[in-house]
């Protein structure tokens, strides 16, 4: 088999946010191509935004993703607020962080337990896993729901929240409205710590890579809604200089843009990057959870991202509890501002990594140019690199097994894949 030319084409990655495909070419036992194609929806949104009022940017871009709409709301707000010189009062910044915690909890728990865990426990999907591990799945769904509760309350509804605007919110919750979240968050925090212990005992492939990690970094907090752009290679820039560091370009095999550093380097965004660059910003229980799970200060094995996501869920729950307990509604739901002409830059940490927005706005407040770079788009190149390194030593496996290997390696990045079962439809061409 290894003497033949094998072409493995996966024509449609089902349930990826955006449409995608995978192409592997194997020539005489050597992997000659591993190309992941994710056709990113933001192309249309960037054009759609031109001519719209800059105050509409959060709600329009939030529709890009049904799983991480909060990230789009937050990055759009950050960019327009940067442009207009809006300083968000601390109570509003706290509420935004609470909202972001909700999204991290929902998104991470969904990925960890429903999409990623079946790979480690040897099940084709979450449903078959649930037959044997019902308690674990029930627990995960309950933790996820604690996150849903935050997003539903602060965002106005669970999916595509509608309560965020430039400068703050449309309506602030009362203390009494937030209080009922507390018990479920506390339960979820205790439960997540225990579940992380279970996950730490999983078998992980021996596969370390030398990544260039990129994440936000903030003076005092683990990054979610603000910070400077930093890298494991020593880059430290304000978000306004994102374009100096990462540039998008076309690759022949995909209609989706890839991102590279000025010297052609590939970067890794997401939980492993945040954790590596912000270990000193972990909350106390998150730090303890990382130690208990046996995680080093920098995790270079992408399969162990399931544990790092777990540490971030502990952190998000811990932060959410703190923010609920300390919440005092401010005088106003949003800082007042006037649109002005210029360019605004915003980046926040979506569950999958840095989400960058840039808007040019004219004197009447209309958007004349928009740029949105989603983390899954940036991570395409590192996913392909992982595939090349991970698949090459496993090429002697039959096609069906090889497909599973590819799926697993791609899923380490949680590219908005919503179903852990058979998202790669395989066609094999042999010559």
């Amino acid at each position: 088999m290894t003497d033949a030319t094998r072409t493995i084409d996966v024509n449609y990655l089902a349930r990826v946010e955006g449409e995608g495909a995978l192409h592997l070419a194997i020539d005489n036992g050597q992997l000659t191509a591993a190309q992941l194609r994710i056709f990113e929806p933001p192309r249309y949104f960037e054009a759609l935004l031109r001519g719209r009022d800059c105050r509409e940017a959060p709600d329009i871009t939030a529709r890009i993703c049904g799983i991480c709409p909060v990230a789009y709301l937050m990055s759009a707000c950050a960019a327009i607020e940067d442009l207009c010189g809006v300083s968000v009062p601390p109570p509003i910044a706290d509420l935004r962080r609470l909202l972001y915690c909700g999204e991290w909890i929902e998104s991470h728990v969904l990925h960890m337990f429903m999409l990623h865990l079946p790979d480690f426990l040897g099940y084709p999907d979450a449903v078959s896993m649930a037959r044997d591990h019902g308690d674990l799945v029930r627990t995960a769904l309950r933790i996820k729901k604690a996150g849903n509760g935050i997003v539903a309350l602060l965002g106005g509804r669970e999916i595509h929240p509608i309560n965020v605007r430039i400068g703050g919110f449309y309506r602030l919750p009362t203390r009494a409205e937030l209080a009922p979240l507390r018990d479920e968050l506390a339960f979820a925090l205790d439960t997540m710590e225990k579940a992380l212990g279970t996950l730490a005992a999983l078998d992980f492939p021996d596969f370390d890579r030398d990544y260039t990690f990129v994440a936000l970094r903030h003076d005092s907090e683990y990054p979610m809604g603000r910070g400077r752009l930093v890298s494991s290679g020593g880059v430290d820039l304000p978000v306004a200089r994102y374009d100096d560091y990462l540039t998008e370009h076309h690759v022949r095999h995909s209609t989706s843009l890839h991102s590279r550093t000025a010297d052609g380097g590939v970067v890794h965004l997401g939980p492993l990057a945040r954790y590596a660059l912000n270990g000193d910003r972990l909350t106390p229980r998150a730090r303890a959870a990382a130690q208990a799970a046996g995680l080093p200060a920098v995790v270079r094995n992408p399969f162990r991202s399931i544990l790092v996501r777990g540490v971030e869920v502990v952190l998000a729950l811990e932060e959410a509890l703190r923010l609920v307990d300390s919440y005092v509604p401010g005088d106003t739901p949003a800082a007042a501002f006037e649109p002005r002409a210029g360019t605004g830059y915003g980046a926040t940490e979506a569950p999958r990594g840095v989400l960058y927005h840039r808007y040019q706005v004219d004197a009447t407040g209309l958007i004349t140019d928009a740029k949105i770079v989603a983390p899954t788009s940036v991570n395409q190149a590192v996913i392909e690199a992982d595939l090349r390194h991970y698949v090459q030593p496993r090429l002697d496996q039959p096609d069906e097994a090889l497909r599973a290997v590819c799926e697993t390696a791609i899923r380490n990045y949680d590219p908005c894949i919503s179903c852990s079962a058979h998202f790669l439809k395989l066609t094999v061409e042999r010559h």
Partner: protein
Amino acid sequence: MKRRVLGIGNGARRDDGVGVWVAQVLATRLGDDADVRVLGDDGFALLDALADIEAAILVDAVQSGAAPGTVHRFDAATQALPPALLRCSTHLLGVAEAVELARALGQLPARLAVYGIEGADFGLGRGLSDAVATAAAGLVEELVTELTDSPCTNTP
């Protein structure tokens, strides 16, 4: 005991909204006698809606290649749903997966009737195509009779 009626779909994608249409008409016709919920494509919301009830009726659009307006009927309490038929969600869990996850977790209602109406047009826009509208109206009459006659309802 009321049976919960779950209408699934997206009313902005033509025939994909047929489950929503059936649920809304049933809600109007039956008033307080019905426990009707409309859900989008979030299977986790469906999972919650199936919990802690004893009987439910679920209506969704399907795309199997059958003639438009064909009504596919499944007794989901006793048979697994064909995954290919009801898995057109772009996010998260589809209907069949949510039902099977509920079964795996032991939280499926004792009675669950699933009606899948074959759609013709899943393009952008509102309103049902003719064959689908006719089938949906027929299903509404059938379900009104069933829900008002059945000893499982609280209507005498």
